[in-house]
Protein backbone atom coordinates (compact mmCIF):
# COMPACT_ATOMS: atom_id res chain seq x y z
CA UNK A 1 0.00 0.00 0.00
CA UNK A 2 1.33 3.43 -0.87
CA UNK A 3 0.33 6.66 0.83
CA UNK A 4 1.14 8.69 -2.29
CA UNK A 5 -1.92 10.89 -2.82
CA UNK A 6 -3.94 9.28 0.00
CA UNK A 7 -3.67 12.19 2.47
CA UNK A 8 -3.23 15.98 2.56
CA UNK A 9 -1.89 18.41 5.14
CA UNK A 10 -4.79 20.82 5.64
CA UNK A 11 -3.68 22.61 8.81
CA UNK A 12 -0.35 23.79 10.18
CA UNK A 13 0.41 26.05 13.09
CA UNK A 14 3.57 27.07 14.92
CA UNK A 15 3.20 28.65 18.35
CA UNK A 16 4.69 32.16 18.29
CA UNK A 17 6.12 31.87 21.80
CA UNK A 18 9.73 31.01 22.45
CA UNK A 19 9.47 31.25 26.25
CA UNK A 20 6.39 30.28 28.21
CA UNK A 21 7.22 30.23 31.93
CA UNK A 22 3.60 30.62 32.99
CA UNK A 23 2.01 27.96 30.81
CA UNK A 24 1.84 24.21 31.17
CA UNK A 25 2.95 21.84 28.43
CA UNK A 26 -0.63 20.57 28.15
CA UNK A 27 -1.86 24.15 27.66
CA UNK A 28 0.61 24.63 24.80
CA UNK A 29 -0.65 21.40 23.20
CA UNK A 30 -4.19 22.80 23.34
CA UNK A 31 -3.12 26.15 21.86
CA UNK A 32 -1.29 24.59 18.91
CA UNK A 33 -4.17 22.15 18.32
CA UNK A 34 -6.56 25.10 18.13
CA UNK A 35 -4.20 26.96 15.82
CA UNK A 36 -3.83 24.09 13.34
CA UNK A 37 -7.57 23.27 13.33
CA UNK A 38 -8.42 26.97 12.78
CA UNK A 39 -5.88 27.08 9.96
CA UNK A 40 -7.56 24.08 8.31
CA UNK A 41 -11.09 25.39 8.92
CA UNK A 42 -11.97 22.35 11.04
CA UNK A 43 -13.07 21.96 14.65
CA UNK A 44 -12.02 19.64 17.44
CA UNK A 45 -15.22 17.67 16.87
CA UNK A 46 -13.96 16.72 13.40
CA UNK A 47 -10.82 15.04 14.79
CA UNK A 48 -11.02 11.24 14.75
CA UNK A 49 -7.29 10.49 14.82
CA UNK A 50 -4.76 11.81 17.34
CA UNK A 51 -0.97 11.59 17.13
CA UNK A 52 1.51 12.73 19.76
CA UNK A 53 4.91 11.67 21.09
CA UNK A 54 7.22 11.67 24.09
CA UNK A 55 6.73 15.38 24.77
CA UNK A 56 3.08 14.82 25.73
CA UNK A 57 2.36 14.61 29.44
CA UNK A 58 1.46 11.30 31.03
CA UNK A 59 0.41 8.49 28.73
CA UNK A 60 0.26 10.78 25.72
CA UNK A 61 -2.90 10.03 23.75
CA UNK A 62 -4.90 9.06 26.85
CA UNK A 63 -4.18 12.16 28.89
CA UNK A 64 -4.27 14.47 25.89
CA UNK A 65 -7.49 13.07 24.40
CA UNK A 66 -9.19 13.68 27.74
CA UNK A 67 -7.67 17.12 28.20
CA UNK A 68 -8.48 18.28 24.67
CA UNK A 69 -11.90 16.61 24.64
CA UNK A 70 -11.16 14.43 21.63
CA UNK A 71 -13.28 11.54 20.38
CA UNK A 72 -10.48 9.77 18.55
CA UNK A 73 -10.91 6.29 17.10
CA UNK A 74 -7.25 6.03 16.10
CA UNK A 75 -4.26 7.10 18.20
CA UNK A 76 -0.46 6.76 17.88
CA UNK A 77 2.35 7.89 20.17
CA UNK A 78 5.45 6.69 18.34
CA UNK A 79 8.53 8.15 20.03
CA UNK A 80 11.58 8.42 17.83
CA UNK A 81 12.78 11.70 19.34
CA UNK A 82 12.76 14.77 17.12
CA UNK A 83 11.82 12.75 14.04
CA UNK A 84 8.53 11.63 15.66
CA UNK A 85 6.33 14.31 14.06
CA UNK A 86 7.46 13.48 10.54
CA UNK A 87 6.82 9.82 11.35
CA UNK A 88 3.39 10.94 12.62
CA UNK A 89 2.51 12.45 9.22
CA UNK A 90 3.52 9.13 7.62
CA UNK A 91 1.47 7.14 10.14
CA UNK A 92 -1.51 9.50 9.84
CA UNK A 93 -1.45 9.12 6.06
CA UNK A 94 -1.29 5.33 6.44
CA UNK A 95 -4.20 5.37 8.88
CA UNK A 96 -6.25 7.57 6.54
CA UNK A 97 -5.41 5.34 3.56
CA UNK A 98 -6.54 2.31 5.58
CA UNK A 99 -9.81 4.00 6.57
CA UNK A 100 -8.93 4.18 10.27
CA UNK A 101 -9.51 7.95 10.48
CA UNK A 102 -10.19 10.97 8.27
CA UNK A 103 -8.97 13.96 10.28
CA UNK A 104 -5.68 13.36 12.10
CA UNK A 105 -4.37 15.92 14.59
CA UNK A 106 -0.64 15.88 15.44
CA UNK A 107 0.64 18.02 18.33
CA UNK A 108 4.01 18.87 19.88
CA UNK A 109 4.77 21.16 22.81
CA UNK A 110 7.46 21.61 25.42
CA UNK A 111 9.15 24.09 27.73
CA UNK A 112 12.87 23.26 27.87
CA UNK A 113 13.78 26.95 28.05
CA UNK A 114 11.73 27.42 31.21
CA UNK A 115 12.38 23.94 32.60
CA UNK A 116 15.85 22.84 31.46
CA UNK A 117 15.50 19.08 32.01
CA UNK A 118 12.14 17.42 32.11
CA UNK A 119 11.46 14.66 34.67
CA UNK A 120 11.26 12.13 31.82
CA UNK A 121 14.73 13.06 30.52
CA UNK A 122 16.29 12.85 33.97
CA UNK A 123 14.69 9.46 34.56
CA UNK A 124 15.99 8.11 31.24
CA UNK A 125 19.59 9.19 31.76
CA UNK A 126 19.80 7.70 35.24
CA UNK A 127 17.84 4.49 34.62
CA UNK A 128 20.21 1.49 34.59
CA UNK A 129 17.35 -0.58 33.20
CA UNK A 130 17.85 1.22 29.89
CA UNK A 131 20.40 -1.25 28.51
CA UNK A 132 22.86 1.26 27.02
CA UNK A 133 22.91 3.69 29.96
CA UNK A 134 25.52 1.88 32.13
CA UNK A 135 27.95 1.89 29.20
CA UNK A 136 27.56 5.53 28.21
CA UNK A 137 26.81 7.83 31.12
CA UNK A 138 30.05 7.08 33.06
CA UNK A 139 31.93 8.70 30.17
CA UNK A 140 29.93 11.94 30.34
CA UNK A 141 28.43 11.59 26.91
CA UNK A 142 26.33 14.65 26.06
CA UNK A 143 24.29 15.52 23.01
CA UNK A 144 26.91 18.06 21.94
CA UNK A 145 30.01 15.88 22.32
CA UNK A 146 28.26 12.97 20.62
CA UNK A 147 27.47 15.17 17.59
CA UNK A 148 30.99 16.56 17.94
CA UNK A 149 32.34 13.08 17.24
CA UNK A 150 30.22 12.86 14.09
CA UNK A 151 31.63 16.18 12.87
CA UNK A 152 35.18 15.23 13.81
CA UNK A 153 34.89 12.01 11.82
CA UNK A 154 33.46 13.82 8.79
CA UNK A 155 36.34 16.29 8.89
CA UNK A 156 38.85 13.45 9.13
CA UNK A 157 37.31 11.34 6.38
CA UNK A 158 36.40 14.06 3.89
CA UNK A 159 38.34 17.21 4.80
CA UNK A 160 35.22 19.09 5.84
CA UNK A 161 36.06 22.36 7.65
CA UNK A 162 34.51 24.41 10.44
CA UNK A 163 34.08 27.25 7.95
CA UNK A 164 31.98 25.00 5.69
CA UNK A 165 29.79 23.95 8.63
CA UNK A 166 29.45 27.62 9.57
CA UNK A 167 27.79 28.36 6.21
CA UNK A 168 24.77 26.34 7.39
CA UNK A 169 24.28 28.65 10.36
CA UNK A 170 24.93 31.69 8.18
CA UNK A 171 22.16 30.60 5.78
CA UNK A 172 19.74 29.99 8.67
CA UNK A 173 20.48 33.45 10.08
CA UNK A 174 19.82 35.10 6.69
CA UNK A 175 16.35 33.54 6.81
CA UNK A 176 15.70 34.23 10.50
CA UNK A 177 16.12 38.00 10.04
CA UNK A 178 12.73 37.97 8.27
CA UNK A 179 10.94 35.91 10.95
CA UNK A 180 9.55 38.18 13.68
CA UNK A 181 9.15 35.18 16.02
CA UNK A 182 12.72 33.86 15.59
CA UNK A 183 14.75 33.70 18.79
CA UNK A 184 17.93 34.85 17.02
CA UNK A 185 17.30 37.35 14.19
CA UNK A 186 20.79 38.73 13.77
CA UNK A 187 22.58 37.83 10.53
CA UNK A 188 25.89 36.17 11.36
CA UNK A 189 29.03 35.57 9.30
CA UNK A 190 31.29 32.55 8.95
CA UNK A 191 33.79 34.42 11.15
CA UNK A 192 31.12 34.91 13.83
CA UNK A 193 30.41 31.17 13.92
CA UNK A 194 34.01 29.95 14.04
CA UNK A 195 34.83 32.73 16.50
CA UNK A 196 32.16 31.65 18.97
CA UNK A 197 33.30 29.48 21.89
CA UNK A 198 33.89 25.77 21.35
CA UNK A 199 31.33 23.70 23.26
CA UNK A 200 32.65 20.28 22.22
CA UNK A 201 35.23 19.94 19.46
CA UNK A 202 34.74 20.85 16.70
CA UNK A 203 31.31 22.36 17.40
CA UNK A 204 31.07 26.01 18.38
CA UNK A 205 28.19 27.60 20.23
CA UNK A 206 26.78 28.87 16.94
CA UNK A 207 26.91 25.35 15.45
CA UNK A 208 24.22 24.39 17.99
CA UNK A 209 20.47 24.93 17.75
CA UNK A 210 18.52 27.09 20.17
CA UNK A 211 16.52 25.91 23.19
CA UNK A 212 12.98 27.25 23.18
CA UNK A 213 9.55 26.74 24.69
CA UNK A 214 6.65 26.39 22.32
CA UNK A 215 5.12 23.89 19.99
CA UNK A 216 3.36 23.17 16.76
CA UNK A 217 0.56 21.13 15.26
CA UNK A 218 -0.56 19.66 11.95
CA UNK A 219 -3.87 18.42 10.60
CA UNK A 220 -3.66 15.58 8.06
CA UNK A 221 -6.90 14.75 6.27
CA UNK A 222 -8.44 12.43 3.70
CA UNK A 223 -8.48 13.75 0.08
CA UNK A 224 -12.23 14.43 0.01
CA UNK A 225 -11.97 16.53 3.16
CA UNK A 226 -8.98 18.46 1.82
CA UNK A 227 -10.97 19.32 -1.32
CA UNK A 228 -13.92 20.54 0.80
CA UNK A 229 -11.74 23.06 2.65
CA UNK A 230 -10.58 26.49 1.52
CA UNK A 231 -6.84 25.92 2.00
CA UNK A 232 -4.28 25.23 -0.74
CA UNK A 233 -3.88 21.49 -1.37
CA UNK A 234 -0.68 20.02 0.07
CA UNK A 235 -0.50 16.36 -0.86
CA UNK A 236 1.59 13.70 0.88
CA UNK A 237 3.63 12.15 -1.93
CA UNK A 238 5.91 9.85 0.02
CA UNK A 239 7.28 9.19 3.49
CA UNK A 240 9.54 6.72 5.23
CA UNK A 241 11.25 6.16 8.55
CA UNK A 242 14.37 4.31 9.67
CA UNK A 243 16.25 3.50 12.85
CA UNK A 244 20.04 3.31 12.91
CA UNK A 245 22.10 2.37 15.96
CA UNK A 246 25.60 1.36 16.98
CA UNK A 247 25.04 -2.17 15.64
CA UNK A 248 26.67 -4.17 18.41
CA UNK A 249 29.85 -2.11 18.13
CA UNK A 250 30.13 -1.87 14.34
CA UNK A 251 30.06 1.92 14.59
CA UNK A 252 30.02 3.75 11.24
CA UNK A 253 29.55 7.51 11.45
CA UNK A 254 29.86 8.08 7.68
CA UNK A 255 26.08 8.03 7.16
CA UNK A 256 22.83 8.28 9.10
CA UNK A 257 19.49 6.49 8.98
CA UNK A 258 18.42 9.11 6.46
CA UNK A 259 20.34 7.14 3.84
CA UNK A 260 17.52 4.59 4.23
CA UNK A 261 14.48 6.78 4.96
CA UNK A 262 15.40 9.19 2.15
CA UNK A 263 15.74 6.50 -0.48
CA UNK A 264 12.41 4.92 0.50
CA UNK A 265 10.56 8.26 0.59
CA UNK A 266 11.88 9.28 -2.84
CA UNK A 267 10.86 5.89 -4.23
CA UNK A 268 7.33 6.21 -2.87
CA UNK A 269 7.00 9.78 -4.13
CA UNK A 270 8.49 8.76 -7.50
CA UNK A 271 10.67 11.88 -7.61
CA UNK A 272 14.40 12.58 -7.28
CA UNK A 273 16.42 15.13 -5.30
CA UNK A 274 16.66 17.26 -8.47
CA UNK A 275 12.87 17.75 -8.40
CA UNK A 276 12.83 19.23 -4.88
CA UNK A 277 12.46 23.04 -4.71
CA UNK A 278 12.78 23.48 -0.94
CA UNK A 279 14.08 21.40 1.98
CA UNK A 280 13.42 21.53 5.69
CA UNK A 281 16.16 19.68 7.56
CA UNK A 282 16.14 19.23 11.34
CA UNK A 283 19.21 21.26 12.22
CA UNK A 284 20.04 20.11 15.72
CA UNK A 285 23.61 21.05 14.78
CA UNK A 286 25.22 22.29 11.60
CA UNK A 287 26.80 18.86 11.04
CA UNK A 288 23.33 17.27 11.15
CA UNK A 289 22.23 19.29 8.11
CA UNK A 290 25.40 18.50 6.17
CA UNK A 291 25.04 14.75 6.83
CA UNK A 292 21.35 14.72 5.90
CA UNK A 293 21.96 16.52 2.60
CA UNK A 294 24.48 13.82 1.67
CA UNK A 295 22.27 10.99 2.89
CA UNK A 296 19.28 12.35 0.95
CA UNK A 297 21.33 12.45 -2.24
CA UNK A 298 21.43 16.23 -2.76
CA UNK A 299 25.21 15.84 -3.07
CA UNK A 300 27.71 12.98 -3.10
CA UNK A 301 28.92 11.56 0.20
CA UNK A 302 31.83 13.60 1.49
CA UNK A 303 31.01 16.68 -0.62
CA UNK A 304 28.50 18.26 1.80
CA UNK A 305 31.03 20.83 2.94
CA UNK A 306 31.44 22.24 -0.55
CA UNK A 307 27.70 21.92 -1.24
CA UNK A 308 26.62 24.12 1.69
CA UNK A 309 29.30 26.78 1.17
CA UNK A 310 28.97 30.24 -0.35
CA UNK A 311 25.30 30.65 0.43
CA UNK A 312 24.03 27.64 -1.50
CA UNK A 313 21.29 27.09 1.14
CA UNK A 314 20.12 30.74 1.20
CA UNK A 315 16.75 31.46 -0.45
CA UNK A 316 17.18 33.64 -3.54
CA UNK A 317 20.94 33.08 -3.53
CA UNK A 318 21.70 29.37 -3.62
CA UNK A 319 20.43 26.32 -5.44
CA UNK A 320 18.76 24.61 -2.49
CA UNK A 321 16.96 26.93 -0.04
CA UNK A 322 16.61 25.30 3.38
CA UNK A 323 14.86 26.14 6.67
CA UNK A 324 13.52 29.48 5.48
CA UNK A 325 11.98 30.17 8.91
CA UNK A 326 15.48 30.24 10.44
CA UNK A 327 15.21 26.62 11.56
CA UNK A 328 16.31 25.29 14.91
CA UNK A 329 19.66 27.06 14.57
CA UNK A 330 18.01 30.50 14.79
CA UNK A 331 14.24 30.40 15.17
CA UNK A 332 12.65 27.65 17.21
CA UNK A 333 13.30 24.22 18.70
CA UNK A 334 10.30 23.49 20.94
CA UNK A 335 10.64 20.53 23.32
CA UNK A 336 14.15 19.97 21.88
CA UNK A 337 12.41 18.16 19.03
CA UNK A 338 12.79 19.68 15.59
CA UNK A 339 10.64 17.57 13.28
CA UNK A 340 7.36 19.46 13.71
CA UNK A 341 8.58 22.91 12.74
CA UNK A 342 10.28 21.39 9.68
CA UNK A 343 6.96 20.17 8.29
CA UNK A 344 5.24 23.47 9.12
CA UNK A 345 7.73 25.57 7.13
CA UNK A 346 7.54 23.13 4.21
CA UNK A 347 3.75 23.58 4.21
CA UNK A 348 4.18 27.39 4.26
CA UNK A 349 6.51 27.20 1.27
CA UNK A 350 4.16 24.98 -0.73
CA UNK A 351 1.19 27.25 0.02
CA UNK A 352 3.19 30.34 -0.88
CA UNK A 353 2.76 31.58 2.68
CA UNK A 354 6.44 31.85 3.64
CA UNK A 355 7.83 35.34 4.24
CA UNK A 356 8.08 37.09 0.82
CA UNK A 357 11.81 37.59 1.32
CA UNK A 358 12.38 33.83 1.53
CA UNK A 359 9.45 32.41 -0.47
CA UNK A 360 10.75 30.00 -3.12
CA UNK A 361 9.26 30.71 -6.56
CA UNK A 362 6.96 28.01 -7.94
CA UNK A 363 7.52 25.84 -4.89
CA UNK A 364 5.55 22.76 -5.89
CA UNK A 365 7.65 20.01 -4.30
CA UNK A 366 9.23 20.14 -0.85
CA UNK A 367 11.01 17.71 1.44
CA UNK A 368 11.07 17.63 5.25
CA UNK A 369 13.60 15.50 7.08
CA UNK A 370 14.16 14.94 10.76
CA UNK A 371 16.43 12.90 12.96
CA UNK A 372 15.97 12.15 16.64
CA UNK A 373 18.22 10.73 19.30
CA UNK A 374 21.79 11.30 18.16
CA UNK A 375 23.64 10.55 14.97
CA UNK A 376 26.64 9.05 16.80
CA UNK A 377 24.42 6.24 18.06
CA UNK A 378 20.73 5.39 18.31
CA UNK A 379 18.64 7.62 16.12
CA UNK A 380 15.42 7.73 14.21
CA UNK A 381 15.20 9.32 10.79
CA UNK A 382 12.10 10.30 8.87
CA UNK A 383 11.71 11.81 5.42
CA UNK A 384 8.52 13.32 4.01
CA UNK A 385 7.89 14.57 0.48
CA UNK A 386 4.99 16.97 -0.08
CA UNK A 387 3.47 18.41 -3.25
CA UNK A 388 1.28 21.42 -3.90
CA UNK A 389 -1.50 20.44 -6.30
Amino acid at each position, binding site marked *: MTINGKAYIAGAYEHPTRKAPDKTTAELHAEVARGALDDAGLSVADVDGFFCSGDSPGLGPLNMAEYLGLRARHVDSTNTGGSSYIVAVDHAAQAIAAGKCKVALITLAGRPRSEPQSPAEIAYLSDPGV*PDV*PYETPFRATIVNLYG*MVAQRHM*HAFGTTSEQLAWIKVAASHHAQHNPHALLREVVSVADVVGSPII*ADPLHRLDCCVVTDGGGALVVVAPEIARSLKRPLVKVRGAAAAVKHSD*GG*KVDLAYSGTAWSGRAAFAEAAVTPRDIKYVSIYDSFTITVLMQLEDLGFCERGTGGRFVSDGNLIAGVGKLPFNTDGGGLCSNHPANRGGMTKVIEAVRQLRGEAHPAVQVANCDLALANGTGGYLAGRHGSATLILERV
Partner: protein
Amino acid sequence: MDAVRPEAQAAPYWRSTGGKLLLKRCKACGELHHYPRPHCPFCFSAETEWVEAAGQGTIYSYSVTRRGAEPYAIAFVTLAEGPTLLTNIVDTPLDTIAIGQPVDVVFRDVDGVAVPMFRRVPPG
Protein backbone atom coordinates in the same frame (compact mmCIF):
# COMPACT_ATOMS: atom_id res chain seq x y z
CA MET B 1 27.69 9.06 39.22
CA ASP B 2 24.34 7.47 39.91
CA ALA B 3 24.11 5.99 36.43
CA VAL B 4 26.73 3.33 37.23
CA ARG B 5 24.34 0.96 38.93
CA PRO B 6 24.92 -2.27 37.10
CA GLU B 7 21.89 -4.32 36.31
CA ALA B 8 22.33 -8.08 36.47
CA GLN B 9 23.57 -8.55 32.90
CA ALA B 10 26.05 -5.69 33.18
CA ALA B 11 27.55 -6.79 36.51
CA PRO B 12 30.40 -8.96 35.16
CA TYR B 13 31.41 -6.09 32.91
CA TRP B 14 31.63 -3.58 35.71
CA ARG B 15 33.45 -6.07 37.93
CA SER B 16 36.17 -6.28 35.29
CA THR B 17 38.73 -4.60 37.49
CA GLY B 18 42.43 -5.35 37.50
CA GLY B 19 43.00 -4.51 33.87
CA LYS B 20 40.42 -6.82 32.32
CA LEU B 21 38.32 -5.46 29.51
CA LEU B 22 35.48 -7.82 28.66
CA LEU B 23 33.53 -8.30 25.45
CA LYS B 24 30.76 -10.71 24.55
CA ARG B 25 31.20 -13.39 21.86
CA CYS B 26 28.39 -15.32 20.24
CA LYS B 27 28.85 -19.07 20.45
CA ALA B 28 26.65 -19.57 17.38
CA CYS B 29 28.03 -17.08 14.83
CA GLY B 30 31.32 -16.17 16.51
CA GLU B 31 30.76 -12.39 16.31
CA LEU B 32 32.00 -10.17 19.13
CA HIS B 33 29.72 -7.40 20.32
CA HIS B 34 29.67 -4.40 22.65
CA TYR B 35 27.89 -3.20 24.76
CA PRO B 36 27.45 -6.67 26.21
CA ARG B 37 24.09 -8.43 26.02
CA PRO B 38 22.87 -11.91 27.01
CA HIS B 39 21.98 -12.49 23.35
CA CYS B 40 23.86 -11.84 20.10
CA PRO B 41 22.67 -8.66 18.35
CA PHE B 42 23.78 -10.10 14.99
CA CYS B 43 22.12 -13.56 14.93
CA PHE B 44 20.01 -13.33 18.12
CA SER B 45 21.44 -16.54 19.53
CA ALA B 46 21.00 -16.71 23.31
CA GLU B 47 24.36 -18.45 23.67
CA THR B 48 27.03 -15.85 24.39
CA GLU B 49 30.23 -15.90 26.46
CA TRP B 50 32.54 -13.36 28.05
CA VAL B 51 35.96 -12.98 26.46
CA GLU B 52 38.81 -10.76 27.53
CA ALA B 53 40.02 -8.11 25.11
CA ALA B 54 43.73 -7.33 24.88
CA GLY B 55 43.01 -3.66 25.62
CA GLN B 56 44.58 -2.26 22.46
CA GLY B 57 42.72 -0.06 20.02
CA THR B 58 42.69 3.02 17.83
CA ILE B 59 40.69 6.24 18.10
CA TYR B 60 37.78 6.16 15.61
CA SER B 61 36.52 9.60 16.64
CA TYR B 62 36.65 11.92 19.64
CA SER B 63 35.44 15.25 20.97
CA VAL B 64 36.88 17.42 23.73
CA THR B 65 34.16 19.05 25.80
CA ARG B 66 35.44 22.50 26.68
CA ARG B 67 32.44 23.92 28.48
CA GLY B 68 32.48 23.32 32.21
CA ALA B 69 35.10 23.28 34.94
CA GLU B 70 37.54 20.82 33.39
CA PRO B 71 37.79 19.81 29.71
CA TYR B 72 37.51 16.09 28.97
CA ALA B 73 37.68 13.87 25.91
CA ILE B 74 34.96 11.45 24.90
CA ALA B 75 35.86 8.97 22.17
CA PHE B 76 34.91 5.96 20.12
CA VAL B 77 37.80 3.49 20.32
CA THR B 78 37.89 0.56 17.90
CA LEU B 79 39.44 -2.41 19.67
CA ALA B 80 41.93 -4.70 17.95
CA GLU B 81 39.29 -7.43 18.28
CA GLY B 82 36.81 -5.39 16.21
CA PRO B 83 34.06 -3.77 18.27
CA THR B 84 34.02 -0.01 18.80
CA LEU B 85 33.15 1.30 22.25
CA LEU B 86 32.31 4.63 23.81
CA THR B 87 34.94 5.75 26.33
CA ASN B 88 37.16 8.58 27.51
CA ILE B 89 40.74 9.39 26.54
CA VAL B 90 42.78 10.09 29.69
CA ASP B 91 46.44 10.59 30.64
CA THR B 92 46.93 12.27 27.27
CA PRO B 93 47.28 16.01 26.55
CA LEU B 94 43.84 16.86 25.14
CA ASP B 95 45.17 18.94 22.26
CA THR B 96 47.31 16.05 20.97
CA ILE B 97 44.42 13.58 20.55
CA ALA B 98 43.78 12.56 16.93
CA ILE B 99 41.74 10.04 14.97
CA GLY B 100 43.74 6.90 14.18
CA GLN B 101 46.05 7.13 17.19
CA PRO B 102 46.84 3.84 18.95
CA VAL B 103 45.53 3.69 22.52
CA ASP B 104 45.52 1.17 25.33
CA VAL B 105 43.15 0.59 28.19
CA VAL B 106 43.47 1.99 31.68
CA PHE B 107 40.86 1.61 34.38
CA ARG B 108 39.49 4.61 36.18
CA ASP B 109 37.30 4.77 39.21
CA VAL B 110 33.93 6.41 38.59
CA ASP B 111 32.00 6.53 41.85
CA GLY B 112 33.54 3.32 43.15
CA VAL B 113 33.35 1.35 39.90
CA ALA B 114 36.36 0.71 37.65
CA VAL B 115 35.48 1.60 34.08
CA PRO B 116 37.69 1.17 30.99
CA MET B 117 39.19 4.33 29.56
CA PHE B 118 42.07 4.70 27.11
CA ARG B 119 45.34 6.59 26.87
CA ARG B 120 47.58 7.28 23.91
CA VAL B 121 50.29 4.66 23.50
CA PRO B 122 53.60 6.46 24.09
CA PRO B 123 55.62 6.68 20.84
CA GLY B 124 58.35 4.01 20.52
